[in-house]
Structure formats: C-alpha cells, structure tokens
C-alpha cells in the first residue's frame, strides 16, 4: 500500500496543477483526501513519511517553502490520527469527517504559520473543496483501508 499511496500523492499533486489551471480559486485540492487517508490508515510509527511527501509535493506544486506545508500537514495529520478510533468506527462518514477536520486544521495551521513566518502558505478554500472530494472517494478509501493493518 505504501508505494501506491506515495504514487497517488504524486498523481494528486499534478491533478492539483491541472485543477488550478481550469478552476482557479475554486479548484479542489486532491492531496487532501490522500492526507486524510494516511492519517486514518497509515501505521502510526511511519506517519512522518506520508506527511513529508504530501507536504513537500504541495509546496513544490504551489512553489512555496516546503517547511510551511509540511508543518501544516504534520499538525493536521497528528490531530486526525489522534481521533482515529472514533473516526474509524463511523465507516465512510468517518473518512469524510476526517477529511473535513484535516482541511480545517490544515487551513488554521497555514494561516498561523503564514502570519508567524511572513511567507505565503496556501490553505483555505482549496483544502475545504478538497475535503468534499472525500465524499465520492469514501467507499474506495474505506475498502482500501480495510485491506491494510491498522494499529489505532
């Protein structure tokens, strides 16, 4: 699963480029469902790897300092991962809720890091719209999640 998820993150980052080109400010961020999936199903001990990959890829695509996006993904993923037992018990709705929580925490982190560092760290609308992508993807994500070992 791990290499597949990392490849999916790479694909999602390029899908973000295309969606921004066509939809501008209303482009959903496909990296968010990937990050939410990792927060729910990736083994906790190795959670830093998907955090690093998702944050770094988003920073590369948005041409921002990687540190800002990685910090935001780290913060939001740790929060969602801490809610893992409750969210997993809700099935598909739990995945959608995880994506929404992740989008909210990520956006708050982005605003805080941006204010503290003076660098542009993009969050907000794209992430919330990205969380909405979790609705059609929930069935697939839950099926994929069940096939891997989860240690809550």
């Amino acid at each position, binding site marked *: 699963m791990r290499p597949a998820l990392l490849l999916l993150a790479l694909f999602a980052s390029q899908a973000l480029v295309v969606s921004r080109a066509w939809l501008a400010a209303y482009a959903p961020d496909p990296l968010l469902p990937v990050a939410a999936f990792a927060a729910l199903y990736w083994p906790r001990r190795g959670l*830093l790897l998907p*955090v690093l990959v998702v944050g770094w890829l988003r920073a590369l695509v948005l*041409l921002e300092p*990687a540190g800002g996006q990685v*910090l935001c993904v*780290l913060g939001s993923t740790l929060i969602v991962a801490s809610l893992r037992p409750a969210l997993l018990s809700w099935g598909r709705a739990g995945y959608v809720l995880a994506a929404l929580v992740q989008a909210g925490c990520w956006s708050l982190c982005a605003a805080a890091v941006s204010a503290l560092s003076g*660098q542009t760290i993009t969050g907000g609308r794209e992430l919330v719209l990205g969380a909405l992508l979790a609705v059609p993807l929930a069935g697939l994500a839950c099926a994929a999640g069940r096939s891997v070992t989860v240690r809550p």
Partner: protein
Amino acid sequence: MSSARPALLLALLCCGSLFGWPGLRDAEQGAALFLLPADPLVKACLPAPMPAQGAARERDLTRATEAWDVWCRALMAQARPVDARYEARVVPVLAARPEQQELLVRVPVGGVRAGSPVTSQGVLLGFLRPWGSHAEVVESGGRARVALLGHPLARPVAASWQLAERAVGEPVHFLITSGPAGPRVAHSSSDSLPPAGQLAWTRDVSRLGDALPAGFLVGRLEVEAAADLPGGGLPGAGAGGLALRLQPVLDAYALSHVVIESAVGQEFALQGCLGHVLASGTSAQRVRLDVGRIDGVQGGDLVVQDGQWLGTIESAGPLTSVVRLGLPDGQLLVVSPDDEIVATTAEPARWPADWTPSPGALVLAGHVDLGGLLVGTVVSADAGGLSVLADPPDPARPVRVVPP
C-alpha cells in the same frame, strides 16, 4: 519519547525552511526531479495560453530598447576617456557596501585599469580599486570594486568651484581628499566661502600628469561651523571657524548602473543559459524552470523571455529553479506616454518629488547584455506602491537566465 524525536527534527527543519536557512530552499527543489516526468502530460492538460498582443507588444518592446539606449547615453554624459584605447561603458552595480564606502560592479575581464574613473550622468563617483591585496582590478568572476570619493584608497581629486556671476573671475581650486567622514575639502586656493549648495567640478590638471578629465560634477559644497579647537585655535579649512563639506549630488548606493572606462572592443562574455517554464508548478507569483545549478543558474539571476522581463531566480535546485515573478528589486525606468523617461524604483518613498507614474506608462528594466527589457505597463500608482500589468510567461517559448 523516541517516536517524538523524528517529528521534532522534522519540525525544526521546517522552521529552517520557513526562515531561510542557507541552502535549504535550494535543497528542497531537488525533489522537483520527481515532477519532471509528468510535465509533458500536465502541459497537455492545461488550457492554451492567451496569445500575446502582437503589434502592440512589438511596439512596446521597441520603445523599451530605445528608452534603454537613451538612458545609457544619459548615464555616459561627460564620460570621455582621454586614452583612445578606452571607451565609456555602462556596467551593472552588483552590490552597494556603505560600510566600506564601496560599490561592487561587473566589468569585462581584462579590459579595465585600477584608478580609472567611475561616473554616472556626468557625476564622478569614485575610482576602480585593486581587488584585495592583488594587482588585478577584476576578480575571476568579472567583479571589480569601486572606491567612492572619500574612501581611504581613493586618489585625491583636483576640483574647483566658481560663482556663475563671477564666471569671468578666477575659480577657486581645491583638493578632494579622504577624511574620516567621507570626502574632505583641502588646500583651497582662496579663503572665500561658496554659497550653500555651490556645485563643484573636476578641473584639468593634465600638466601635472593627471589624466582625469575636467568637468565631472563632484558634489555640492556646504559651509558648516567647525568645532572650536583646544586652546581657542581655528581649524585650517575655510575661515572664521567655518569648514567646507562636500555633499554628494547622487546617492551612489542607490544606483543600479554606473559608467567605467574599458578597453575598446572588450565585450562581456554573455553568460547564462536557456530554459523552459515547467507546467508542474502553479502560482501567480512564481514559476519553475527546467534549468538549475548544473546549468550554471544561481540565486539572483535574471530571467527574460524575448525582451520581456520575467523575474529573478529565488532558489536554484540541481535540475530546476524557481523564479519569483514581478518587478525588479533595483532601478526601473518608467516611460510615460509622452516618452519622458524617469529612473526610479518600485518604492513610492524613492520616487522623485511631485511625480507619480501615470497609468499606461511603460515600466522597463535594463541589462547591459540584453538591453531594455519590458516589465509591463502601469495600472495604478499611489502611496501603497506600483501596480504593473505584465504578460505571463509563455511555456512554449524558451527563457534566458543571465547573471545580473
């Protein structure tokens, strides 16, 4: 505890990235390697770029080239080397060092002499000085140092001032030497004091073997009360306890280009490389190029596309680099619709008094190798800053990356 350690290390590295630890931003770009294979596919999925407005754009590019040429001629006013083997040449200022009273300029390697004058718009700024403790004037990268007037290593300059209404009378000669607080007026030929703000020029002392041409403006003379000397004595300069100070007429540290003397025919070796804008990055303020450090790209290099200014290299990874789009940091030329050229910067605080760029005016940057570069047209200008409309980079055409 042990699982928290990697997270803390990662957070620390993130802070380093955010606050610009040296080299970290460049290292981050190394991962862009993974985006390169997908770039053609992404490019094919993007909407077609808007075509640039052909005739109007060509006209603007021509105006940019002409305005730059006019500006260079204005910079070279009065600069006429005595030695026929040398010619006046506009060169870029790479850095200003007020603490050392120096400028760092880029010059043609092998084509300049120590002690040759450095000017701008007919104003003598200083002289080229040897690089470090060596006899060479130019270091291997083509950089040279300018010792400004008053620098301990700057040579004395013979100068004079004369009242306009007394033009038939004798001018007052003096020597500009180095002092602890900049240029010092010494050995005045008369105790007469000039009016406040009196301009002074270099004078012809070729009979004494000094080839510095006459007529360069050296500064404004200001009379100031000198402190009493211990024991009630008077200072040497001036009379009646008054001293003369030479104030610069140009802020040398704010100049983007100066004029030097260089050997005739000695050209800059045009450095830099060609690259393309990559599709695998999306930002209104930045673009990624497919050239990096292995192609010779460095942070601060300029990026242009067919006579159009794009921006400066913000970070350079091994294979790719990031360009910050927007106005140049240094000097801009603003060409009004009636072809008036004003050299300024994007900061309103440094605009000339009672002047604001008019909407529709062209904004240009200049480069000694590439000539006038079109930045864009003024949309609005007020105390908040300058807003310029620029054409976005065209991913289909190559860009050139050149040192400043």
